[in-house]
């Protein structure tokens, strides 16, 4: 049994102009200790997938139209809010992109971490304090005991993200979901946080889902990768497969269009993907990427391409895989 099994998941939102599907027919599983990278652009459905797993979407307007989310064998989609709160924390925890908006500005960071611990277990004040200092040290906050009484605005962006990690880890979750954990951070701090995430994975043995738009973050962290586009998984593979043998034209274009530090210096154009991301209300028929794909043929717009195996653990949704 996998730690997390998501099968046929479709999450929709009610809008003024009808119901739109943010995530469609998503399938994946995750083992204990594994790092799954989910890469995609705006509207790809990567964050909605994570929020559905966490049970954090307000329903309505969100609705799980189909599919299941099983965590350690337990179906999550049918749980009440109250039952779901017991899963969040010791089961699944999450960190977000913007640590400033996730922390409460009127409580010290120590109070916020102790509160998390005491919401889930009976810990005395002294034990809670000691555990919190230990957590802050673990996430690399210098002079942790003194920083307990600091307020969020007194910390830098990188330190706030470390505090968010400490809160997420307070109940020793079996799965940590990190949604764009380094996007708001500077590049030198990004590197430190990514290294820290992997160290914590090793130490706590938890599974990790890293959601990002940055293919470099995937190269740094993931064991296995899902590539999402316009609400669907278009490719999934072990991380080396994504970088060595990208199969879907979108994955290939994404890899090619980001300039690299070690590529030969050449003047001229970057390989660009033409067009724009589809509006979720007017998604193209058939393959969602077809209007921007240089390999597209009329058949691509006729029907959704099935996920086709191209190697061990490697599959792509494209009817032009051999082209």
């Amino acid at each position: 049994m996998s730690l997390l099994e998501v099968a046929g998941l479709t999450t929709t939102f009610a809008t003024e102009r009808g119901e739109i599907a943010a995530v469609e027919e998503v399938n994946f599983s995750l083992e204990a200790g594994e790092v799954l990278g989910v890469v995609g652009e705006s509207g790809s459905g990567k964050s909605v997938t994570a929020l559905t797993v966490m049970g954090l979407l307000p329903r309505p307007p969100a609705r799980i139209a189909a599919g299941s989310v099983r965590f350690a064998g337990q179906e999550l989609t049918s749980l009440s809010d109250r039952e779901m709160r017991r899963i969040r924390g010791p089961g699944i925890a999450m960190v977000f992109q913007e640590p400033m908006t996730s922390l409460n500005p009127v409580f010290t960071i120590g109070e916020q971490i102790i509160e998390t611990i005491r919401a889930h277990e009976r810990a005395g004040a002294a034990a809670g304090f000691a555990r919190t200092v230990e957590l802050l040290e673990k996430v690399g906050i210098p002079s942790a005991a003194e920083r307990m009484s600091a307020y969020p605005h007194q910390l830098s962006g990188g330190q706030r993200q470390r505090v968010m990690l400490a809160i997420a880890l307070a109940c020793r979750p079996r799965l940590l979901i990190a949604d764009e954990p380094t996007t708001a951070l500077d590049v030198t701090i990004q590197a430190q946080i990514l290294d820290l995430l992997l160290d914590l994975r090793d130490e706590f043995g938890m599974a990790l889902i890293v959601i990002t738009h940055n293919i470099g973050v995937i190269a740094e962290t993931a064991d296995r990768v899902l590539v999402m586009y316009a609400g669907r998984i278009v490719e999934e593979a072990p991380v080396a497969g994504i970088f060595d043998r990208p199969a879907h034209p979108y994955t290939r274009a994404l890899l090619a269009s980001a300039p690299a530090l070690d590529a030969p210096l050449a003047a001229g154009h970057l390989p660009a993907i033409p067009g724009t991301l589809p509006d979720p209300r007017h998604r193209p028929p058939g393959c969602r990427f077809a209007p921007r794909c240089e390999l597209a043929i009329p058949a691509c717009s006729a029907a959704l391409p099935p996920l086709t195996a191209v190697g061990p653990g490697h599959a792509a949704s494209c009817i032009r895989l051999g082209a």
Partner: protein
Amino acid sequence: MMTPLVEATGLSRDFALGARGLFGRSRHVLRAVDRVDLAILPGETVGLVGESGSGKSTLGRLLIRLVEPTAGRIRFGAEDITRLGGRALAETRRAMQIVFQDPYGALDPRMPVEQIVMEPLRIHGARADAAARRAVAEMLDLVGLPPRAARRFPHEFSGGQRQRIGIARALILRPQFVVADEPVSALDVSVQAQIINLLTDLQRELGLTYLFIAHDLAVVRHIASRVAVMYLGKIVELAEKSALYAEPLHPYTQALIAAVPVRHPSARAAGRVRRAELSGDVPSALAIPSGCRFHPRCPHAMALCREREPAPREVRPGHVVSCHLVNPA
């Protein structure tokens, strides 16, 4: 030696923060840009990189007089524009424009695109007549937008298209110098390359000179001819891009390059080792460290670095670095 199009000498900008004390003196002064020298040649692209709080956006705005300098001089072509005001400043500003990072915040949502793009012409005294509309149509075509875009509103466009509108507005006065302040950072990855390609095409067609401000070192490496690295208000290294990326001399530049995520998972372990040396956060600009401002984070800091600020030195032709560790070759 070519005459620079834009030249800053000893350029500084202080910001007063927080409550004012007796006699209106502010208790906290943040020096965002600190005695910067920079010369930008006609037709080139200077990349300006650094982390948040490094002062790179303030420097860009100082050069085009959107922000007033506290000290130092700015020349534009043959003219000293540091103290220019009124009509003379307005005339000079035609030749200097800016493209902003956020294509959502920079466009008035109530104006149709034609008015947005025409606005700079009107500010500079043109009438909204057929000639102005023709100029807008030409500009929209140049940035790759269809003619029908003129009658639409910003919300009807994607992020990439909105950035095209922002570029059209910046270029309608036919400037010589354009400050591009993180122009692709807010865009989706698949759209970034389109906008970078557009900026390079426009530079060639219109003979533009760019200051390209970015935190993404790979993007800067692609688009720039020379690169300046800023840290806490100072340019710590400046070089031709081939030299800067192949042989970065300042430990901060080395750390920035090492921190860029690897391009292949097989390089992961090596990447971790390479960047293990840099620790800590950027210090607050309100409490700039003594001596070399990078010394608290520098793995090679010596006693001298804590005491004396290193002066910029040209260690090789065109390669200027401010670091006590680096001796002239």
